[in-house]
Each structure stands twice: as structure tokens, then as C-alpha cells.
């Protein structure tokens, strides 16, 4: 089967969705499918939103690439039609990200060669351009929306329109699948998950490697090291994490590592993380081996965000053998389950109490992390993801000609 993915961004751009697209593309290519990805020639967060962004700092990508049997075509973004987008906003359509004429053209050419067009995200121009290409080429579509319930950027008429036009929708959790069907009127939903190969994390989790990293970071014996992974944007509820860390630091010194690309918002909000006893380790997006070393050296992974389409960072923490704390909402609660601790979203006191419980009961914390690692092998492996994706492709092809 020939599959064309149309996605706004693709690795080396970082993110849970980007990792999922790459994992699916590589795993399906390994099973003999022809796989092509049409994406934007954009890696940095800044370049995704700002057409006057500075030149690439650490990664630049070209117009075509081939990795592990996947052909990747990267398209230049076009000038942003601000007036048209503003007009669309009056009609209730709010799209984020860049428009690309080249992406429409390349997607159209690729769709003609494809059996299925797989669209990614639901509130970005690339998804709508991909749908247009698929319709012009008369090809069935599968959509993975990475839906964030409760987020107004997702809960809008344009997204509903797109969800109902895709032949099959892939949800990354049973919770997302159920709500898309019940509340958004999506007719064909296939439930899948995200996945992670734990093998590269094993070496980082060795006790001596962990001790070395903690020493390098200057983390004293008995000083808890908390870690957050993700884009430093307000949607991740970082102020709640800052307030919770300050509460913990009022009792004993705490080190908090925030790892991920900065945003304009964060540059202004960074000062809010200053508190007596709290040491902030502020890092940009770092290479994967460095990230693995840091997570394995931490005591707890904390993800304060109330909206996640999945929460890949929980799998990363389990692979490194550390316990997790996440918000008690929808998909996050489903993913974390009994392999972590949940807190009331937006409640810094409850988050601090959840972390404190794990720090005070290391045996219990280790047991939850072990449950998470066991779950990685059973539920969050690429084999199961690809089975679900292939089912979605078969369903979509069966839906042709409707």
C-alpha cells in the first residue's frame, strides 16, 4: 500500500505528534508499505509561527530526504495571508501555523500515487491543504487530530468540519476515541496509542550514570530533582509547576529542570520561577542522549499540562525508571492510570502534595515506575500502533467511492 502523510512538521522537529508520525512512517515502511511524508521546511518553533524568524540555529533541513525507507518532501512556507485569516476568524475558523502553496502542490502530486492520504493535526492549514489534495486526487483520508479537549483552538467549527470529512479518524487513546465519536459526531474512529522503544533508555538508567549526571548538575544528596519536558508555552501550565515547586522548596532545597524550546511568553515569565530554595535548571531542547541522561537522573517527572493528546513524556519517564505526576484529565489520566500520580489540574497545592507523596515514599514511587515500564512493553509498542494504523487504512480504502 502507498501512504502519503501530510503533516505540518516532522522530525528533527520535536514533539509527541512529530514522534508519532515518524514512528508510524518508519514502522509501516519496514512492513513493506511505500511511505512518503509531505511536510513544511520548518523545524524551529519560532519559524512555525513567524515568517521573519532568524536563520536556523542548530538544524536546517533541505527539500527532500530519505530516512529508514521513508521519503520526506519538505516545502517552503508561503507568505501568511493575514487579512484572509482574520476574515476567516470572523467566521469562527482559527488556524495556527504556516500556509504553504508548495505543500498543496506536492501533496496533490503525491496523493495521485497514493492509496491513502494520512493527515495530521486538525487546526493547522497543512491538514486542510492535505484534505484538498486528497479530494482532488480522489483518495481516501485518514486523520490523526491529536485532539485537546477543552482547548478552544481545537473546539471550533472548522475542526468539526475536518473531523467529519476524514474517512477514518485515529485517536491516540480510548478516551479520545469515545469523545470524538460521542461529542463530535465522528463516524469511524480507530483507537491507537503513542509508543516508545525503551532500549536506548536502559543505559541511561544505570545507577552509576544517574549519579554522575546528578553530580554534574550539582544536585546534592537528598535534594529532589524534578524534571519537565516540553515546549515552554502557557498551555503547559508551567506557572502551576513553578508555584508547586516553590511550595516544595519552602521545606527543603529542590532542583527543577525545565527542558524544551522557549517561547516569547516564557522569556517574560521565567522570573516567576525564582523562589527561596528552588534552583532552576533551564535548558533548551537538548539532544536525545542528553535528555535520556537527565530524565534517568531525576526523581520525578512532572507534567502540569491539563491538555495533552497523549503525553509521550510519561512513557519516556517510565523507560528511564522514574515515577510521573500528571493532571487528572481525560487522556492523561488514562495513560498514567495506576503507574503514576494524578493531581487536580491547575491546583499547585495538590501538585506539590502529589510530588511530596512520591518523594516521601520511594518504594511506592519505584513500584509505580515499574508498573509503567511493564506497560510500555504490553501496551505502548510500535507493533500495536501499526496494527491499528493499518486497520484504519483498510477501513478508509473500504470507504472509497462513498
Amino acid at each position, binding site marked *: 500500500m502507498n501512504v502519503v502523510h501530510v503533516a505540518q512538521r516532522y522530525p*528533527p522537529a520535536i514533539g509527541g505528534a512529530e514522534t508519532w508520525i515518524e514512528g508510524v512512517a518508519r514502522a509501516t515502511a519496514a512492513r513493506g508499505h511505500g511511505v512518503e511524508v509531505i511536510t513544511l521546511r520548518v523545524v524551529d518553533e519560532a519559524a512555525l509561527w513567524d515568517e521573519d524568524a532568524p536563520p536556523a540555529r542548530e538544524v536546517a533541513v533541505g527539500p527532500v530526504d530519505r530516512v529508514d525507507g521513508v521519503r520526506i*518532501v519538505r516545502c517552503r512556507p508561503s507568505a501568511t495571508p493575514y487579512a484572509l485569516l482574520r476574515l476567516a476568524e470572523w467566521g469562527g475558523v482559527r488556524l495556527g501555523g504556516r500556509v504553504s502553496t508548495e505543500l498543496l*502542490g506536492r501533496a496533490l502530486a503525491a496523493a495521485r500515487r497514493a492509496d491513502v492520504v494520512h493527515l495530521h493535526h486538525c487546526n493547522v492549514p497543512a491538514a486542510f491543504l492535505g484534505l484538498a489534495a486528497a479530494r482532488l486526487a480522489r483518495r481516501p483520508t485518514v486523520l490523526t487530530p491529536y485532539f485537546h479537549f477543552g482547548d478552544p483552538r481545537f473546539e471550533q467549527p472548522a475542526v468539526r468540519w475536518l473531523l467529519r470529512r476524514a474517512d477514518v479518524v485515529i485517536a491516540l487513546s480510548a478516551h479520545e476515541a469515545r469523545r470524538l465519536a460521542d461529542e463530535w459526531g465522528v463516524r469511524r474512529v480507530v483507537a491507537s496509542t503513542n509508543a516508545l522503544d525503551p532500549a536506548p533508555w536502559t543505559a541511561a538508567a544505570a545507577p552509576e550514570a544517574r549519579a554522575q549526571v546528578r553530580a554534574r548538575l550539582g544536585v546534592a544528596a537528598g535534594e529532589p530533582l524534578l524534571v519537565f519536558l516540553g515546549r515552554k508555552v502557557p498551555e503547559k501550565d508551567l506557572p502551576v509547576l513553578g508555584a508547586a515547586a516553590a511550595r516544595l522548596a519552602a521545606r527543603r532545597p529542590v532542583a527543577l529542570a525545565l527542558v524544551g524550546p522557549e517561547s516569547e511568553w516564557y522569556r517574560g515569565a521565567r522570573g516567576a520561577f525564582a523562589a527561596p530554595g528552588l534552583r532552576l535548571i533551564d535548558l533548551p531542547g537538548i539532544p536525545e542522549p*542528553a535528555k535520556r541522561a537527565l530524565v534517568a537522573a531525576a526523581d520525578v517527572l512532572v507534567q502540569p499540562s491539563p491538555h495533552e493528546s497523549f503525553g509521550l513524556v510519561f512513557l519516556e519517564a517510565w523507560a528511564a525508571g522514574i515515577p510521573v505526576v500528571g493532571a487528572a484529565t481525560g487522556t492523561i489520566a488514562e495513560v498514567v492510570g495506576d503507574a503514576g500520580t494524578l493531581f487536580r489540574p491547575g491546583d499547585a497545592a495538590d501538585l506539590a502534595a502529589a510530588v511530596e507523596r512520591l518523594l516521601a515514599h520511594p518504594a511506592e514511587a519505584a513500584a509505580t515506575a515499574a508498573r509503567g515500564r511493564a506497560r510500555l512493553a504490553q501496551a505502548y509498542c510500535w507493533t500495536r500502533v501499526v496494527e491499528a494504523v493499518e486497520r484504519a487504512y483498510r477501513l478508509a480504502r473500504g470507504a472509497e467511492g462513498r
Partner: protein
Amino acid sequence: MTAALRRQWRRAAWLARDVGRSGRAVAHALALARRPAPDVALGVLEGAPWAVRGRENAYLLRLVNDGTAARRLRLAVGGTAPGAPPLATAATFDVPARSAREVHLVTDWVARFALADARPLTDPAAFLTVPPGVPTSCRVDARLADAASPGGRLTIVQPLVA
């Protein structure tokens, strides 16, 4: 003309410009649908979040041959950094059809500037502590000699710490 009228006129002009651009964009997209992507390109030029002068810094380059026949590609890489002489290296690589070849650039941003097949071993924890001081910047320019497309050339401007 009142300020409100002038504002409305400006908005209408922007809208007209966007509508005009959209029309041209559709024509452009249809033309691109018939034109293939470049056969030969640099797929990626990737460094670390920052480089350190005097230490081994590694960069990944992927040479892509998307065509139907094997190609011999000449890669030329140049580097500039404050206080260092212009650095440059070049080599030729055979790349089979419909595949990519990974090459690594290794430099200390002082004198060494060489291409290698294998990625040098680096300390994963090196990027967990941001070096003190105000960084300058270094620039890596990579070019595939026989690729006429814009993707035959990639550049990054990376923070460089002493």
C-alpha cells in the same frame, strides 16, 4: 477622509492583496504538482544546541540522492567563527539511487575541520549545563557541488561558547 475610513480602506486593500496572492498560489500549486522535487539535496545539517571552542563538536549531514541512478556527490563545507581562520573541507561520496548517506563534520572551531563517516563519541551530559558567558556565534555552510537546487545548500548559525 476620517481615520476610520482610512482604516477600512487599508483593510480592504490587504484583503484584495491576499485574494490576489491566493489566486496566484493556486496556479503555483498546480504547477508544482507537475514538477518533481529536486533529485539531489542535503537532507539535514544538524548540530547541538551550542558549540564549544576547543572541544570536539559534531554535525550530522545527510546527502540525499532521490533519483533513479547512483550519483557521485561532492560535498563542500565551510565554517566561520570569530577569532578562527576560515575553515573548509570537501569530499566526494557515492550515493546509491533513492537513498541517503550520512556524513559527520567534526570541528574544534580552532583548526580541526574534517568530515568523518562515524559520529564521534560525545558525552551525553555535556548539554545539561549551559556554559557560562555570553556566546558568540559560528556558522556552518554546507553545499552539494552539483546540486543546482536551493536545497543543495544549508546553513546554520549556532551559539559558540569559549
